[in-house]
């Protein structure tokens, strides 16, 4: 399945780009991410717990960055094995456009799930993928751009 979307982030493009390459930021934003260790500048090893309804499966896998064009765009891909649960893999082309001091993050993502998790969840994969993508970009936007509550505290 394919997912496209965009998210406005109240931060300069350089800051957004740095965050997109920061293992700690990615770990905090990937839904269910337990571990994300940087193996090289473009490779990470991840452990992600996928919880959707009664299903709870742990996926161990790798996240790879490619087609790097700082600070404009990259391709991020992830692939994980969930043991008997099956496999999940996905990728997204991400690009950043400056707009009046803020940054618009655009993405085109694909997700694939196979094995038992696909059989049982066949009627829910699209909805789940959209939900997870929304959670990731929502969390990313909150981590990167200063929250309104913080700026109020700053004024005080």
């Amino acid at each position: 399945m394919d997912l496209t979307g965009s998210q406005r982030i109240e931060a300069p493009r350089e800051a957004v780009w740095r965050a997109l390459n920061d293992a700690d930021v990615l770990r905090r934003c990937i839904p269910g991410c337990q571990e994300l260790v940087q193996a090289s500048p473009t490779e990470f090893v991840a452990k992600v717990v996928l919880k959707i309804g009664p299903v709870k499966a742990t996926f161990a896998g790798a996240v790879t960055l490619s087609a790097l064009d700082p600070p404009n765009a990259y391709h991020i891909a992830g692939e994980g094995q969930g043991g008997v649960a099956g496999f999940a893999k996905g990728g997204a082309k991400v690009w950043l456009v400056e707009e009046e001091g803020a940054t618009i993050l655009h993405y085109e993502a694909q997700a694939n799930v196979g094995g038992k998790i696909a059989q049982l969840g066949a009627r829910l994969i699209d909805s789940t993928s959209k939900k997870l993508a929304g959670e990731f970009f929502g969390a990313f936007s909150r981590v990167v751009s200063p929250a309104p509550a913080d700026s109020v505290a700053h004024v005080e």
Partner: protein
Amino acid sequence: MFPFTYHRPVELASAHALLVANEEAKLLAGGQTLIATLKQRLASPSDLVDLARVPGLTGIAREGGALVIGAMTRHAEVAASQQVAAAIPALADLAGRIGDPAVRNRGTLGGSIANNDPSADYPAACLGLDATIVTDRRELAAGDFFLGLFETALEPDEIILSVRFPIGGTATYAKFANPASRYAMAGAFLWRGEEGVRVAITGAGQNGVFRWSAAETALVADFSPAALVDIGLDGDEMIADIHGSGAYRAHLAGVMTRRAVARILERGSP
């Protein structure tokens, strides 16, 4: 299945204590989703806390202007209850059309709403009837209980005790069932009473059950199937899967709602 420790507490406090002590514990109600998931090895809880022997969780009672149904009451009991049929016939009808006989004889009201499957039937009845979900620590309006795809307002160690359905008005449930699973491809629970009209749609929305407010507004102005002809749901926000596209489900939800309106009109005022 992966191994787990099975518990069958005989009081609510022990069930709660087991949940608190074991972070990876799961409550077992009727098990019609959970056991299938465990068999597929798609979940591996450390402990299963079976609610079957906890007293006070089953039964149907009329309390004032409401019907109170225990969380562990089976669908078949609700479907066969004279009391439910007399007070809220649409609820008995809905329960009798969930899944197959095996599911109805094991599945429970509490299990269904705690799971909040986006295609389940009971969540639509709870929203449509503006029910109150009673837990071991608070009471939640149905509108505050269902939060999204498989998500509810329940805390990890919170246990549903019962659901209180207000009696009054007229209701009906129109459902287009998947022929294999009997899950709703789209279902419309319609309620009409002195306070207005409620339309709860299940089986279609990507975020699970929802109130279709545009249809409610139109039906308050003109309670007829024709009032809904120009109102549509957005197919991009509906579930798309191997059984049907989002546009198909959006259309189907409209058809089910119009059928529900026609059925209430045929029946006349109560």
